[in-house]
C-alpha cells in the first residue's frame, strides 16, 4: 500500500473506532441518564409502570406540605396539576424557592403504594418562573378538567 493510502486508512480506522466506542457509550448513557417527564394526571391514568426513574412536575398543593415532626429531614407534600394529585416524599434540604402554591419538579420513582419517592427536588431560581414542562402540563390538565365539566354539563338538562 502506498503511504498516503495507508495514512488515509489509518485515519478512517481511528474515526470508525472512535465512532463505535462513542455509540456504545451513548447507548449506555441514554439508558442511565434519560428521564421521561410525567404529570400527576398521566400518573393517575396509569402511564407509569415499574420503578424506573422519572421526572414529575406540577404545583405544590396549598396546605399539603408536611415537614415538622417527621423522622430526620424527611418531608411530604402533594404535587398537583389541579386535575389529579400525587403524594411525594423527599429526604433532604429543600431549595430556597420551594413553597406551597409554586411550581416544582422532582426526579425519582413511584413506589408500590403510589407514592413518589423523590431523589431530588428542583425549583427554579425565579419567582415568576414556571418551567415549560409544568406550564404545558397545567394547560393539558386544565383542558381535561374543562372537558369533564362540559361532559357533566351536557348530561344535565
Amino acid at each position, binding site marked *: 500500500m502506498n*503511504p*498516503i493510502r*495507508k*495514512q488515509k486508512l*489509518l*485515519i478512517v480506522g*481511528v*474515526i470508525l473506532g*472512535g465512532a463505535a466506542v*462513542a455509540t456504545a*457509550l*451513548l447507548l*449506555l*448513557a*441514554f439508558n*442511565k*441518564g*434519560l*428521564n*421521561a*417527564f410525567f404529570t400527576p394526571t398521566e400518573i393517575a391514568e396509569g402511564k407509569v409502570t415499574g420503578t424506573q*426513574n422519572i*421526572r414529575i412536575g406540577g404545583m405544590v398543593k396549598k396546605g399539603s406540605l408536611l*415537614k*415538622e*415532626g*417527621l423522622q*430526620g*429531614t424527611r418531608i411530604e407534600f402533594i404535587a398537583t396539576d389541579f386535575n389529579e394529585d400525587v403524594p411525594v416524599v423527599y*429526604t*433532604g*434540604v*429543600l431549595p*430556597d*424557592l*420551594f413553597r406551597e402554591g409554586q411550581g416544582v419538579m422532582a*426526579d425519582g420513582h413511584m413506589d408500590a403504594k403510589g407514592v413518589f419517592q423523590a431523589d431530588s427536588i*428542583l425549583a*427554579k*431560581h*425565579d*419567582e415568576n*418562573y414556571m*418551567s*415549560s*414542562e409544568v406550564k*404545558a402540563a397545567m394547560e*393539558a390538565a386544565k383542558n381535561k378538567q374543562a372537558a369533564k365539566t362540559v361532559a357533566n354539563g351536557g348530561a344535565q338538562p
Partner: protein
Amino acid sequence: MIPELGNFALMLALCLALLQAVLPMAGTYTNSQLWMGLGRPLSAGIWVFMVLAFACLARSFLHDDFSVAYVARNSNTELPVYYKFAAVWGAHEGSLLLWVLILASWGYAVSLLSSKLPLDIVARVLSVMAMITAGFLAFMIFTSNPFDRMLLNTPTEGTDLNPLLQDFGLTVHPPFLYMGYVGFSVAFAFAIAALLTGRLDAAWARWTRPWTNAAWAFLTVGITLGSWWSYYELGWGGWWFWDPVENVSFMPWLVGTALIHSLAVTEKRGVFKSWTVLLAISAFSLSMLGAFIVRSGVITSVHAFATDPERGMVLLALLLVIIGASLCLYAIRAPVVKGSASYAANSREVFLLINNILLVVATAMILLGTLFPLIHEAIYGEANRMSVGPPYYNTIFIPLMALLAFFLGVATFSRWKKTSLEHLKQNLKLVLLASVVLGIGLPLLVTSSINPAIMLAVGLVLWIVFGVLKDILDKTANKDSRLAGLLGLGRSYYGMQLAHFGVAVLITGVCLTSHYSIEQDVRMKPGDSVSIGDYSFEFGGVVERKGPNYDAQSATINVSKNGKAYRVMNPEKRKYHARGDVQTEAAIDTGFFRDLFTALGDPRGDDAWVVRLHVKPFVFWIWLGAFLMAAGGVLALLDRRYRYRPVLLAQTTEAPSATAPDAVMAKVVNS
C-alpha cells in the same frame, strides 16, 4: 439626557460597524489601499462609541435613574454601589451591551496588534468581525435596547438585582466568560479570511494561535469562576451540574481546546488545515449557540435570563445567517486549503488527531444531551417530554477524558512526522511503571481499600505529571547546565507543560472530591452536634441579623477538630427587601486539602433546622487546576515567536514543505 447619549452612541457604533463590514472587504476586491486601510480607524471608532454607551448605562445605574426601564428592573437605591455597577450586565439587555463592547474591544485589539500582518488580511479579518458586531448591535438596538425609557410613569424605586447575582463571583464571571466566547470571533474571522483568500499556511496559524490561546484562557477562567460561584452561592455544595447553560459554555471550551492543538499541527507541519478552519468556525458558532440558548428560553435551566420567544427567533435568525454563511463558504472553499505533508501512523500528528477526535466526540455528545429534550419534543409532541440527567453525561464524559489523559502522556514524547515505537517504549517505560505502581500503591496505602476507579485516576494523574517532569529533564539533559537548559526552553513549551500539569491537578480534585466527600444533611436543634471525620459540628441556633439590603437568619455552627475548638461558621438565609427573594448563603472554610462546607436549610419546627454539613477533600484543586491551565495558555501566547521575527517567518524552515499554494503564499506574505 445621558441615556439618550448612550442610545446615540449605540446607533453611531452600528453605522460605523456597517461601514467597516463593507468598505475594507470591498477594498480587498478592488485592491484599494485606502478602503482596506479604513479597517483600523473604524474599529477604533466602534470601540470608542461602545465604551461611551457602556459608561452611559453605568452612570444611569450609579445615579439610580429609574426612568431607564432596564435600570428600574435590575437595581435599587439600597443596592451597594459595587453591585450597582455589576448590575449593568446583570440581565439580558446589559449583558448584551457588555458582549458587544467586548466584541468591539477584540476588534480594536486586532487592529492595534496586527501591524506585522499584510493589510488585506487585516482588512478581511476586521470586516468579518464588524459583520458580527453589526448583527449583534442591530439585535440589541431593535429588540433589547438597554436605554429604553419609562418617562411617563417613572418608578421611584427599582425592583433590585437578582439576589443570586449579588456577589463578587458574579461581578467577574460574565466579563471573563464573554471575553472567551467573543474572543473566538477572532479565530473565526481569521478562518473566514483564510477561506476567502485560499491562503492558509504556517504564518496564518502563527497569527491565529495567540488570539485563540487568549480567548481560551479567558473562557477557562470564566467557566471556573462560574463553577466556583455556583459552589458557594447556590448552597448545594456542588461544582458542576451538567445544566444546559453550563454545557453551552463548556462546548466552545472543548472545541477551543481541540482548536489550540490542531493549530499547533497546522503551524508546525502544515496539515489539518481545513479541519483547523472548521474547528475555528465551530468554536465561535457554539459560543453563539450558547448565547441563543441562554437568552431564548428554549431550554429549561436553573439560569434565568429574561426569556422572550420573539427575541429568541431574531437571535436564531442571526445565528443561522452567521453559521450558515460561514459553513457554506467552508463547503465551497475548503478543498483549496487542503494540507499536503505526509505523516506516519505513529507520529505526534496522529496523537493530536486522537486528542481532537476525543474532544470533538465529547462535545457532540454534550450537544446531543443538551438538545435532546428539544429534538424529542419536536418528534414525539409535547406530551412525551424527556430530560437528560447527569448520569448520561458522566457515563460518556469520564471514559473519554480518561482516554484523553492517557494519550496526553504519550503525545508529549512523540515526535512530528514519525516516532519509532522503540523511542516511545524507551521514554515511557519508567513513567508507565512508576504511575502503575504508585497509582495502585498510594490509594491502597492511604485508604487501605481497593477502589479501581480511584486507582485508575491516580495512575493517570501520575502518568501525566511524571511525563511532564521527564520531558523537561530530557529536554535539558544535553545542555551545559540544567539551569541553562531550563532557561533555553521557550515560553510556549512551559505554557504547554503548565497547562497539562493543570489537567492533572484538576483530575485529582474532581476524582478525590467526588469519591471522598462526606455529605450529611441533618436536622439539628441548638446544642446538637454531628461528627464527620476529625471534625465535629455543633449547632448553636439561629439569630436574626440585618444586612445592607436584606434581613438574614444567621446560624452559628461551632466546629471543633479532634476535640479542640477550630472555628465558628455562620451560614445564612437572606431575605432581600426589594424582591422578597430568599437566598442561601453558605459558609465555607477553604483549605488546600479540604473544604468544610456548611449551609442552612429550612426550619423544621421546635428551633430545629435542616443543616447541610460537607467535608470535601481536594475540592480547591479543581479550581487550582483550571487556573493553571489558563495560566499555561497565557504563558504560551507570550512566547517570543509571536512578537519578534515579523513577516520573514514564512521563509523559515518551520514552514510546511513547499507545495505550490504554500509557495505562492510565502511570496505574497513577503511582498
